């Protein structure tokens, strides 16, 4: 904290996020150049006067950038008015706050302290819509989140040793920052973004509900234990998705573009209704890929495996690899293009099946470059138009443009049905 005493003219004055600047109530301060006080949702700038209720004079010019500032007792009646973005003001002159919010710090100490109970909050009132909620070491108990209103933000600080458990949907307009333990119930969460990227050891249980997120999702903290449970993560706006080293259950790309910034593991479903951009990252799918939107493969690798892998919807992969012992079903009549490579890691004992989702109705493959196909059991696949699909061993049933160990297959066409014929 810095206290300014004595009339002073500054050229440029900057207050870094997380700091408090206190100006003498009796003093006058002028900034002739630029004034910068840029806090953030979890790290505000505080400006006030030395005597509560007695304003300090602070004259600012037109060059000003004021965000997330908690301003009290500041008089800027002379000079350029101040717009305090996402800030709060109290007893100020010529200051306008947009997105005014009040901070609530959890103070509960009970084993199950209800968030609805006003005595569990620093303000002795219950947070309501748009307010900022903080869990810190001030609160020593576990919090049961049972508030229905949408908070401005919720910040579970690393200093909070308790557990936040939701019994209603956790609604947050802005960021849900998780540096402590969080268990989400069946109601799920509806948040602007999720940030669990810090290195604090913590556990997040996603529960069996839906997480609707309108921004970035960072579930990549170095010491994060993530229980995906039966959750569904819906990406509902443009945002980055980083769940490095963790596995998600169901992910739906519903609106906007979701950009992977790290490898992504999904062991149930990946639904694409808008755009998923993989960049150079690896996507590993155990369950199903339902592509009804845009799949931008970039220079990525998609790895598929499991006993019931299903891929549906016209999709262009950069590189796709089916791991050994994988049973895959490909959307009948759907087109799958492999621009870089198509690899099947099946072996004699752990073969890979490549079937269509509808028997006797082909899925369409088109490889434009190299393939490496091991032991494969292929049925109902039409690779016409691309390079030859040459499996080292296995069997081919109703296939087009497939070889078996370098040997061409004669195709007999009967209606829509292909019949195998071995020379």
């Amino acid at each position, binding site marked *: 904290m810095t206290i300014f005493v004595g009339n002073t003219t500054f050229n440029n004055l900057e207050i870094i996020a997380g700091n408090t600047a206190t100006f003498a109530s009796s003093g006058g301060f002028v900034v002739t*150049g630029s004034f910068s006080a840029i806090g953030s949702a979890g790290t505000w700038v505080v400006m006030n006067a030395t005597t509560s209720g007695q304003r300090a004079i602070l004259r600012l010019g037109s060059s000003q950038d004021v965000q997330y500032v908690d301003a009290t007792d500041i008089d800027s009646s002379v000079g350029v008015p101040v717009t305090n973005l996402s800030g709060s003001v109290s007893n100020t002159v010529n200051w306008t706050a947009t997105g005014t919010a009040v901070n609530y710090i959890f103070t509960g100490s009970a084993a199950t302290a209800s968030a609805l109970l006003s005595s569990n909050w620093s303000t002795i009132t219950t947070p309501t819509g748009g307010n900022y909620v903080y869990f810190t070491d001030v609160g020593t108990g576990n919090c049961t989140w049972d508030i229905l209103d949408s908070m401005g933000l919720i910040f579970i600080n690393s200093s909070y040793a308790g557990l936040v458990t939701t019994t209603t949907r956790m609604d947050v307009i802005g960021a849900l920052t998780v540096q402590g333990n969080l268990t989400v119930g069946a109601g799920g969460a509806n948040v602007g973004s999720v940030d669990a990227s810090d290195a604090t050891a913590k556990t997040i249980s996603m529960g069996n509900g839906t997480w609707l997120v309108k921004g970035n999702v960072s579930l990549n903290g170095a010491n994060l234990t993530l229980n995906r449970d039966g959750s569904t993560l819906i990406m509902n706006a443009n945002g980055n998705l980083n769940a490095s080293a963790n596995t998600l259950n169901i992910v739906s790309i519903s609106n906007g573009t979701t950009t992977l910034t790290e490898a992504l593991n999904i062991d149930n479903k990946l639904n694409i209704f808008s755009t998923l951009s993989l960049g150079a990252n690896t996507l590993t799918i155990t369950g199903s890929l339902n592509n009804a939107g845009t799949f931008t493969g970039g220079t990525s690798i998609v790895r598929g495996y499991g006993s019931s892998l299903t891929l549906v919807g016209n999709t262009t992969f950069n590189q796709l690899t089916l791991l050994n012992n994988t049973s895959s079903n490909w959307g009948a009549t759907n087109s799958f293009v492999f621009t870089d490579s198509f690899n099947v890691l099946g072996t004699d004992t752990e073969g890979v099946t490549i079937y269509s989702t509808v028997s006797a109705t082909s899925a369409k493959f088109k490889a434009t470059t190299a393939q490496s196909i091991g032991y494969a059991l292929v049925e109902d696949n039409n690779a016409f138009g691309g390079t030859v699909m040459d499996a080292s061993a296995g069997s081919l049933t109703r296939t087009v443009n497939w070889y078996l160990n370098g040997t061409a297959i004669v195709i007999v066409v009967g209606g829509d049905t292909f019949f195998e014929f071995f020379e």
Partner: protein
Amino acid sequence: MALVYDANGFNVTATGILANGATSKTLDMGEGTWTVSGNIQLSSGMTFTPSTSTVTVNETSTIKTGGKAFSGFTFGATKTYTLGDDLNVDGTLTIGSGFTATVNSNSIKASAGITLGNETSVLAGSATLLYDGTGTLTGNSGTISTNWTINTGGTLTLSGIIKYDTGTLTYTAGTVDAGTSTLSIVGSCTLNTDGIDWYTIAQTNGIVVTLTSDITITNDVTSPGASGFSYTWNGYTMHIKGDYNGGGTNTTFTLFGTTTYKVDGSGDQLLNINTRGVGTRYIQNPFIIESTGGTVTMDSEYDEHIDFRGGFTYVSGTVDWTTHGITAYFGATQNVDSGTMSFYKVNIYAGTVTLTGNMIVGNTLTINASSTLALGSNTLMLKGDFINNGTFTPGTGKVVVTS
């Protein structure tokens, strides 16, 4: 007829040694001690064999060697000795315990050891002490109060406390091994010793030292404090590689002069500089911190203030002002460039302080009445309070509130 005297190992007591006639002479000093209470006059044409003898002179006398070299030579009484030509001593040169030997004219060329008998042994006079050999100078807190030149192809090893005053100490060539010795400056003098790494330098109140080259101290600089004490160093740079022990809890002093104090050691350094923060105790000299390793810890036991008045520059290193809660006072018009170093508290006490680099203040920055802090185009990082009772000139710079 030739005259031959062979001391043959006996001790000899003589009222003088005179060997300046035309007759051929041979003098073998033997292995004993010659105690001479009068003049010594050797001739260049004689045969003189010093052997391992020691000559002790103990009366006012004239010494003329004719170019001959003695083995051991001792000034054994508080007397005045006049050199008729250079006195060459190839053995140990000794100033006897408790005696002041005033040796005038020409030079004493010492080529081996030098021993000052005790703390009241003084070599004074106008003769220059020229060291040109290999040996040990044992100080025993005695004083060299003559011009002193070190110009040797060998190694001079220093031992104990060697006091110096009055003349000019010149280093020209050779190796000087300071060991753990102390050069104690006890009077105003001139030092030209670039090339010597002194171990400890001590000084006494009121000295005025003129540097004609840089001086380097690897261990301590010691400056006792008391009311009115001061130390004046002019010219060049004092490289402080170790600690500065100046004053104490109840003792202060002022550093005058133009010599730049440069703190440029490579390990931990403690600077205990008790100059007080207000009034008449201060550092008039330029002050630079250019540490290359360890931590420079600032201290001032008297009132936790250090008053700089000759400019302050930080170049490199880790500097700790916080452990001892030291306030940097700036009590006169000067430039300050503290760069990336963080002060604890700063007090602009008098005059105009112009920043020529950035300044970081970890605690309170105070500008006193009638004082000015001129920011220029620099950045002032504040981690504590800003108390402006004087003038703050913002220039084109920036003030940043941070933590």
